[in-house]
Every structure is written in structure tokens, then in C-alpha cells.
């Protein structure tokens, strides 16, 4: 796959950076002229992954969250969100709808389900005490007009 464009931003695991990450993602893909629906889906998936890194990965401590994006083969968007936080012990369990380790904080356990629904694919790479990497891809529709 040919890399058309690439970016990486790193920021502290502060919840106010959730909105920054969405804006950065939206602005990076804007040259591709995504549909409103695609743009919302990508912003939502980024928000979920970045929130998870902040809430669960670093769990109140301060660390670095990395958001990387690539545009591949003209219209495929690849998004990677990485933290060096506490990691996920059971990935299959974490992916189940409604599963959350923070029910007391009103987490709904739907983050991974939203990412999977709004993106074409999602992969989780994680190890306890090492951190977590989420990789998502979405091919944007081609405007035929």
C-alpha cells in the first residue's frame, strides 16, 4: 500500500485533549473531502480510542498518548492510537458490548463496539503494564461525479 500522507501527534493524557484529537483527525483527512457521515464516524472512533487511553490506560496518571494517521492508496484512512499505560489483560472480554471495568464512573462499555461499527476494521494490540495500541482503518467512498 502506498502512503499518500502521514501525521503523528503526541499529547498528555488529559481529558481536555479528547476534543483536540478529534479536531486534528478531522482536519488531517479534510483534503480527501469525506462525507459528513464519514467525518462523524472517524471523529467518534478517534474520540473513543483516545478517551480509553486516558481513562483506562493511564487511569488518572499522566502519560503520553500518540495519535498517528495515514492516508493509504488515495482514500483509505489508517488511525493508530497508542498509550504506554496499564494494558488490557483480556482483549476478547474488553471488546464485548457493555463490558467495562469502570461501571462506577458511568462508562457504558460501548467504546470498542462503536469503533468497530463506525470503522471498517479495528485491531487491538495490548500487554499488561506495557500499553495498548488500537489500529483502525476506513476506506472513504469515491465520489464518482
Amino acid at each position: 500500500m502506498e502512503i499518500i500522507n502521514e501525521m503523528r501527534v503526541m499529547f498528555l493524557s488529559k481529558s481536555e485533549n479528547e476534543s483536540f484529537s478529534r479536531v486534528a483527525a478531522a482536519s488531517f483527512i479534510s483534503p480527501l473531502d469525506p462525507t459528513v457521515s464519514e467525518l462523524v464516524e472517524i471523529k467518534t472512533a478517534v474520540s473513543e480510542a483516545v478517551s480509553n487511553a486516558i481513562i483506562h490506560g493511564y487511569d488518572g496518571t499522566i502519560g503520553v498518548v500518540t495519535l498517528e494517521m495515514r492516508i493509504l492508496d488515495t482514500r483509505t484512512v489508517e488511525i493508530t492510537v497508542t498509550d504506554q499505560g496499564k494494558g488490557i489483560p483480556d482483549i476478547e472480554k474488553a471488546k464485548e458490548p457493555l463490558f467495562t471495568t469502570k461501571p462506577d464512573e458511568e462508562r457504558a462499555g460501548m467504546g470498542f463496539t462503536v469503533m468497530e461499527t463506525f470503522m471498517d476494521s479495528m485491531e487491538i494490540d495490548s500487554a499488561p503494564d506495557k500499553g495498548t495500541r488500537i489500529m483502525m482503518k476506513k476506506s472513504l467512498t469515491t465520489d464518482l461525479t
Partner: protein
Amino acid sequence: MDILFEETNQILTIFLSGELDHHNCIAAKDRIGLKLSMGSYHKILYHLEGLTFMDSSGIGLIANGCKIASVFDAKVYLYTENEKHLKIFTMSNMQELVTLISSRKELDAVWKSSMK
């Protein structure tokens, strides 16, 4: 994010506007929780048409309100025409906790009948 409350004879409407993510969910949860625990309502309507962004944090916010409202047996409604937001709510079976309203017509119908 902005929150606006409107109440008329035990019906509380909660207007949310702007962006709802985990960050501003924390403050919103407290404000709505406080409002709900100070009153006693028959009906509660979450009016979400003003939300320009929402991720799965929205589910927890609404569910938390429902939990508080269950003390005084209020019926909870949620109005949004945003397809993505509706999808997030239905994916999490929100329709088991609240009545989802997805059009202006439906909203008017429900509200007219409740004003009687």
C-alpha cells in the same frame, strides 16, 4: 457543552448542546444529577438536537440520569434526529431505559399528550 433546564408542572426538559465526550460528561453528569435530585418529576426529556458531537459517553450520562429519576418513577424520553447518535443509543439498548424519539412530529405528539 451547554446545559439548559426548562420545567413546567413536573416535566423537566434538559437541553444539551455542543460536544459531549468523556471530558465534558463529568461536569454535565454532576449538574444534571444535582438538578434531578432536587426535584420530583413525572417526565424527563433529554433534548439532544443541539449536540454537534457525541461518543459513547452520552450513554452513561443518560443512564445516570435514569438511575436518579427512577427514585420518583419518572418516565424518561430522549429526542434526537441525529442518525449516528441514535445508532450509539440503540447499540447499547437505550430503548429499554428511555423512549427514543427521532422526529419532530413524534416529539410534538408525545408532548401534546403529556401536557393534558
